[in-house]
Structure formats: C-alpha cells, structure tokens
C-alpha cells in the first residue's frame, strides 16, 4: 500500500507568493509547525496547484464522466492513474466552455507595497456599472502529502493540522489565509494503470513541477537530466527557483515545469508511481513531480477531436 492524502484548501485572503503554485516547501513549513517531530521528519508535500471553484466536467481520460456545478470546489473520486491529475494542470481543462474559462482560471491581481499579489476570488461581468450582476468565484489550492520513509505512518494528517494554514508572504498582515475544504486518501497501488500497460505503446513525460538540477542547499546533490528522459529538439527550458528555510534563501536551478519529454525507460507503471511521489533533489518539497501518458493521446483533447474530424472529412490543413 502506498498512500497519498489529497487536500483542497480554500483561499480566504490575498496570496502573496509564488505565482505558479504554492510551493511544496511553503506548505511543508506551514504543516511542520503543527505536527510532531517524527511526522515532521517523514512527511513529503507536493506543490499546491491553484484550482478555480467553477463549473466543469470530467475529460474523457478520467474514470468518471459527467460534470457538476462548482466542480473545482471539491475533491473527486480517484480510481485510475489519470484521475490523480484532474486538478494538477495549470490549464484546468475540465472547466466548462459555456463560461469564460480564461477569466475563471486567471488571478485578479492586487498590489501590496509594490508587489503583485493574487486575490482570493475572481470577479467578472461588468464591475463598475452593474455591481449586482457580478458573480464571485473562489480559488482553491490542491496538494497532496505522503510519508517519505517507506511506511504510511505520517498520513493522513489530522484535519486540525490542515485547517487554517497560512501561505506565502506577509502572513503577519493576514495575507495567505486558507481553510480546509476537503481531503481524502488514495492508495497508489490500487489504481488502474491500464493506459500505461500496452507494451507496444510509446510514452511521454510531462513535468508537473520543476526538476532540480542544482541547489545551494547544504549537502544537496546536483542532478543531470535523467537518462530515461529523451528531450525534444530545441532542448529544455530552465528556470531559477528558490528554497526558503529559517529565513535563509537557497537558489535552485531547475528544468521548468509544463515541458514534455519522451520516456525512454523500461517500466512505465513503476515510473508513473515514482512520478507521483516525485524524483530528484528536494522531492520532499514539491519538486520533481511528473505524469506519463501515451504519445498517441493529445494533451489538449479538443485538438485531437478537431484533427480527427478533419481527417475523416479528407481535408488536412
């Protein structure tokens, strides 16, 4: 049994922190203050992905079908490997197309002391003239924790631990307040991995969080690109990241998330599980998360269906 605990937090106040996600390290630091020493040593925390609390529906790849109002405001059943990633992509492709998806999925910006922060809600419609017809949407933060020592002793964390975490900067000024919305545990060994079991198929690997190649942190190893990645032409985009601990800032070099490389390893299912538990330096704090998928499935479902419709119409563009 390999247990992960998924958590959905509601963002209650402006968030002043990393714009891409709430870092696993920020979540870890917030949790560490509230747990005993042994949990502190063994718990590993993913990055928190921003999820709009809006209407939507399952993509075809998921084990469930249909949709729901406020789809993003609750955790959903996890039966297959693909289900793990429902809320893990910044593009949040489950968002309903009958609503302004891009407005829902981008943050309203606020300026605090010359720094840009994200508002906890998105307002849309006509703000000035028609205040009453304005709707408000709430943001959530999706992350998961697991025990990094080979047992499952550290999880699940108590709801008391997860409720009321404060994230990002200016916390003393009340920013970054969250409340626990939902949590559930998932056994990675009990999931359906059938899309990764076809021996004839080729797979690609999408970086869900950055992969650390160099770290200033004492004792951290530098890493080269894993041998089982086959980068695409043009190379890999790098991005500087940082790890903050006890007020010290450690600069990191990473391979930026969102990129896709070919998979050249022998064991897709095993690799897929390790991608959920993350690989490489600082994997305990969110880095090195990735997803595998068959190269024949488009990451953008509508692009595949438009291409298929054109092919069957005999027209290729």
């Amino acid at each position, binding site marked *: 049994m390999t247990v992960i605990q998924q958590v959905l937090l509601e963002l209650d106040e402006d968030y002043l922190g990393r*714009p891409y996600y709430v870092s696993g390290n920020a979540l870890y630091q917030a949790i560490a203050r509230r747990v005993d020493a042994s949990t502190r040593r063994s718990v590993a925390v993913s990055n928190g992905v921003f999820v709009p609390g809006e209407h939507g529906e399952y993509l075809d790849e998921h084990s469930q079908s249909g949709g729901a109002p406020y789809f993003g405001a609750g955790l959903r059943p996890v039966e297959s490997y693909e289900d793990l990633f429902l809320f893990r992509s910044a*593009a949040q492709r489950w968002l309903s197309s009958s*609503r*302004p998806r891009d407005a829902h999925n981008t943050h309203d*910006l606020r300026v605090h002391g010359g720094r840009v922060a994200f508002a906890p809600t998105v307002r849309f419609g006509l703000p000035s003239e*028609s205040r009453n017809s304005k709707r408000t949407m709430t943001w959530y933060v999706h992350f998961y924790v697991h025990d990094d020592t080979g047992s499952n002793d550290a999880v699940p964390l108590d709801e008391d631990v997860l409720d009321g975490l404060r994230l990002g900067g200016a916390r003393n000024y009340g920013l970054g307040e969250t409340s626990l919305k939902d949590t559930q545990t998932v056994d990675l060994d009990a999931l359906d991995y059938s899309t990764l079991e076809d021996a004839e198929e080729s797979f690609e690997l999408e970086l869900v969080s950055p992969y650390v190649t160099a770290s200033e942190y004492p004792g951290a190893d530098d890493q080269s690109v894993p041998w089982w990645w086959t980068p695409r032409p043009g190379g890999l985009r790098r991005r500087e990241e940082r790890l903050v601990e006890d007020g010290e800032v450690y600069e990191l070099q990473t391979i930026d998330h969102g990129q896709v490389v070919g998979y050249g390893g022998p064991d897709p299912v095993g690799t897929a599980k390790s991608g959920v538990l993350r690989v490489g330096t600082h994997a305990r704090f969110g880095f090195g998360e990735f997803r595998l998928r068959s190269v024949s499935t488009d990451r953008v479902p509508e692009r595949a269906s438009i291409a298929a419709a054109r092919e069957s119409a*005999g027209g290729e*563009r």
Partner: protein
Amino acid sequence: MTGAGDPDELDELQPPSTEIRPVTEQEANAGEASSPTADAESASVKADDDVSMLSVYRHDVHKSRGRSHEDAAAEFAGVPVNEPVPLGADADAALLSRPRGEPAQSVKNHISPFRLSLVTGETATSAGRVDGGIRGALAELVQIEDPVEMHAAWLESAVASIFNESVYYPYTSLKFHTLLTAALVDNYRAGYGFDELYLVVDQSEDAEADPRVVPHRTVLVLPSFALRITGEPGERSAARLGAAPAMSWADVWTRLPEHPFDGDDERMWRVVDAQLRRIRSWSTALQFIEESYGWWQALQRSSRLGGGEQ
C-alpha cells in the same frame, strides 16, 4: 440597427449596450468554426493568390460594430471590408481562440463588441480615449494601402484591441484574431499545413535593438521580444502548434524551449508567465501579454512618481 451600430456613438465611449444583439452572428460563427472542406479550397487556391493581404486585415472590421459577416456592410471608411479570407484561415484562427461549435453567450451580462480585459476586469474602452476617436482610428487603420505597413499598423494598434472577436466570447481580441488570421494565410500560401507550424520567440539582440518583425507572421511585438507563427522556425526557440487549430495556447506556451524574459521586470513576467500557463484562447493570451506589459509600465511610473514626492 442598434445604438452602438452608429459609429458616431462609438466615439463617445459609452458603456457597451446590452441591446447589441447581432442575431445572425450565431449562424455566421457556426459556419466559421466548422472545418472547411479540402476540395472546395483547392479549387479556389488560384483565385486566393490574387486576394490581397489587405483584405485579410480588413475582414473583421465589421465586428467593431457588433455585426455578423452576413449582416455587415461591404464598405467601411471607403474601403471594401468583410471579404472572404482565403484557405480557411479565418475559421482556423477562430478555433485557436474560441470553443468549437454553436457559440454560447459565455458572459451573461456582457453582450457587446467591446472586449473585456483579463487584466482589469473592465471593458477595454475604460483604459482611456483613443486618439482621434474610435471611428477615426479604425478608418486610418483600414485605409492603409501597403500590406507590410498594414501589418505593422495592426501590431501597434490600440483601437483594434478595444474589440472582441465574437460578442459571445468577450475576453477574445479582434486585434490578435486578425493578426493570427494573417499569419495563417501567409503560411498556408507558402505551402505549410497547420500541423507544420510553430510558435517562435524572436528576442531583441540587445537592450537598444527592436525585436525582429517578419511581415504578416509576427503576431505580437513588445520592446524586448516578438512572437511569430511560422513554418520556418530555423534556429529560433520554437514549439509546434500541434495537429489542428484548437484552444491550445497554454500547451504550446509551456512547451517553448525558452521564454522571453525581461530582466528588469522579473517578478512581473513571472506573474504573466504563470497566468499564460492557465489561458487557453490564443487571442486572449496575446492580448493579455500586451495589456499586462502596459499595466505594469503604468504601475512602475506611478510608483516612481509617488516615491519621488515623499
């Protein structure tokens, strides 16, 4: 005819009227977004070559008046507008930025040709007056007679960004829909299929130099970089657009081997980059980059001024 259809009223920058209901836009868009058939196209390729790029830049100007293709006048400011775009490029550009199939009103209380801004949440007209008035600026834009100058003028245009490309999807941008359409036409004419196209970043060589602009293919230009759609990426940092036109912005952007980055405004670009990984519509995303840059510059100016007074 509705109130905002009168171009003189546009000049007064009134709040968009909810009375603008282009009844035939629905059918027009449905046709636009459906896959064009190949045989109809190949028969018209020869004639297409004769269609000037000028007409491509003019093809959607009627949308500034909330009109559908069927319902629109054939002339605006003395030049022919609303001529068909060759090679299915208009339909393909539409698929890059809006959902496929029957359009549905995505923002219930905003049915207007005026664009809504992802940066401010307000209508784009609230950013301020356009020099010479909206009608005057639009007329000046479409009356240009040189195709390369026309492309350059659209890249720089403020007035074109006031409008959306469909009243059903108010966060889209007429400006970037038009530039994307022109880029597709130019690439298709050079013999590239959609699945052979790339998004390319053209960085400025140094702080003094402007980024490289390629006529009809550059779709966005800022002081430090430009973005281009091309079948010939060469050595530049590039990502494939994929098998078919779709609302794939976030996917293509996150696969670029290099992101344009302005060292002085690093925090701002990180915020913009993070948002760009969440946006799916191409014209919305390109407009968002341009508008964020302007928003940030204004913020910097005002905070510098504020600091100096104390």
